[in-house]
């Protein structure tokens, strides 16, 4: 059984008089431990798809099976629970909480799981060591470099042991050397058994992934395997 199953997903927005067909009948299966990239021009619907995959948004119609559960019609609080349990988000601009240290940022998702402080700290230390930041745990985000910040963000995504790592242009704000490091980390995480879904418009990044899905006008236009 596949980890994710999207069935006939439609998402239309009303923008004044016009209807924007952000997603126009997308069906897709993603198996566990896949390494998959969505590419496409801006406005192709890849971000909307990402939001739906990340349970931030609900599809207009269609079904989204995650681990066999249909999450397409849950309410906001139930979606929050799904995000906390199954999704690890990694954003282009890192989205760390600016007033919290690296360690506290990584501990944050576990608060919503009602994990006691000590267990949270222990779990956060382990993942921060995994991403190579054992020496920067008590720094605030603005005391860290871009690459380090993204590592904190990755650690935060990993700490909940999610079913799915969801990375939206994870290297978009990084220089090329750092990009290489971060992509290497993703490759390693994939080898360790994580399922990684990435949105990118850079062919170099997409090349790291095993499977590339090209989007156009809210539809899947092309798929290939590296």
């Amino acid at each position, binding site marked *: 059984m596949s980890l994710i199953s999207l069935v006939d997903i439609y998402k239309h927005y009303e923008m004044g008089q016009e209807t924007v067909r952000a997603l126009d009948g997308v069906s897709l299966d993603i198996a566990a431990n896949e390494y998959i990239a969505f590419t496409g021009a801006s406005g192709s619907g890849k971000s909307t798809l990402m939001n739906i995959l990340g349970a931030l948004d609900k599809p207009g119609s269609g079904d989204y099976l995650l681990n066999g559960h249909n999450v397409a019609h849950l309410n906001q609080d139930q979606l929050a*629970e799904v995000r906390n349990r199954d999704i690890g*988000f990694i954003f282009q601009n890192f*989205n*760390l*909480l*600016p007033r919290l240290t690296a360690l506290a940022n990584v501990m*944050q998702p576990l608060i*919503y799981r009602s994990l006691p402080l000590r267990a949270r700290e222990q779990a956060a230390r382990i993942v921060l060591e995994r991403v190579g930041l054992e020496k920067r745990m008590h720094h605030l985000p603005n005391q860290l470099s871009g690459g380090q910040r993204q590592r904190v963000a990755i650690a935060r995504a990993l700490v*909940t042991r999610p079913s799915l790592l969801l990375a939206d242009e994870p290297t978009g704000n990084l220089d090329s050397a750092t990009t290489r490091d971060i992509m290497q980390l993703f490759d390693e995480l994939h080898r360790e058994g994580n399922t990684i879904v990435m949105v990118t418009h850079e062919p170099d990044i997409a090349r790291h992934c095993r499977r590339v899905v090209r989007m156009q006008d809210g539809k899947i236009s092309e798929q290939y395997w590296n």
Partner: protein
Amino acid sequence: MFTFIECSRAALISIKAHGLRSLLTTLGIIIGVASVIATVSIVQGLSFNINQQFEGLGSNSLSIYSYTSFDDQLRGRFGRITDRDLQLVSTRVSGIESITPILSSRFNSPVRKGARSTYGRVIGTSETYREVNQLFIEQGRFLSDSDNQSRRRVCVIGVSVRDGLSLPENPVGEYIEINNEWFKVIGLAEAKGEMLGLQQDDIVLLPYNSMQRLNGNPAELDIQIQLTVQNLDDMPKVSEQVQQLLRKSHNIEGDDDDFKIQSAEQLRDSISQITAAVTLVMGGIVSISLLVGGIGIMNIMLVSVTERTREIGICKAIGAKRHVILLQFLLESLLLCLLGGLVGLLIGYAAGAGIAAMIPDFPPAYVSLWAVALSFGFSALVGLVFGIAPAAKAANLDPIDALRYE
């Protein structure tokens, strides 16, 4: 409970992160609470002090004095209490423990001793004055019945009269001049201190009859009667009897008596009514400033929500449910208000104590528990009420929009 602790932690971090802003935000609350506490502490200190003084006055005493309405004054009719009334009350009213006349002086001349003079309240009275007023004699003796019978020129004085005239420590045997007549000091009354800012030790007590002679013109005699009742519970009954008797003897038929009967209890009640009213009015005025402070808090919290839209989005993306965000912002505004309340409490108490200490002879400030509880409760209420709108706004943000917010 877990959520509650975590949200308080987050709220505290946020308050600390914006130290100056938090301080300025709570300034309204601080000032509000400080003024409530300062005002209430001063007024409460005053009334506490008054109550204590009344304890010593003896709450089982009644005074009867003449009263002339303004209308009657215009007509030239003045109410009087006379010897006859004293006789009537002391013989016909039951339940009286002791009764004494008080005859005030009709002259204004000071008390003299040689070249020195001082102000003294010269009162003519009988030996029962001592029981009614709980007056104790420190040196010598009190006025006796025979002093009165033979109109002796003797007096009992208070300590401030002794000091004012530079009499020796034990003034018994000295002579002082009252309204151009010489009186021998036979006793010194124990110091009583002040009450309501009134000096109580400036008395000069003469035998009733001697005083009457000093005053002259007995036709215009107007005295006060003080009495104590045997049983405190009988007070209303005694008061009623006295009223009936005097109305009959003064041939009063209308509603307006030409005398008043006042108990120490009544005086105390009316004073505590005044202080309660002052407390209430001041409290009302300053609670408006708390309200204004609350609006300030809401304003800043709304700004804070807007400013932290992105953070709220992040928290929601990594799994924060609505009630967690709601609780965090609500707790933040609650904590702000409570901190403001605490600071205000300290400042208010310090201000109250400072003001009370600066005014001479003013009783010390007294903060009652209810004032503390009330101002804290009110601060908390302000925090909750004015925190709801911003917190609800934060909780209902759409995670996608919030994440996209610049």
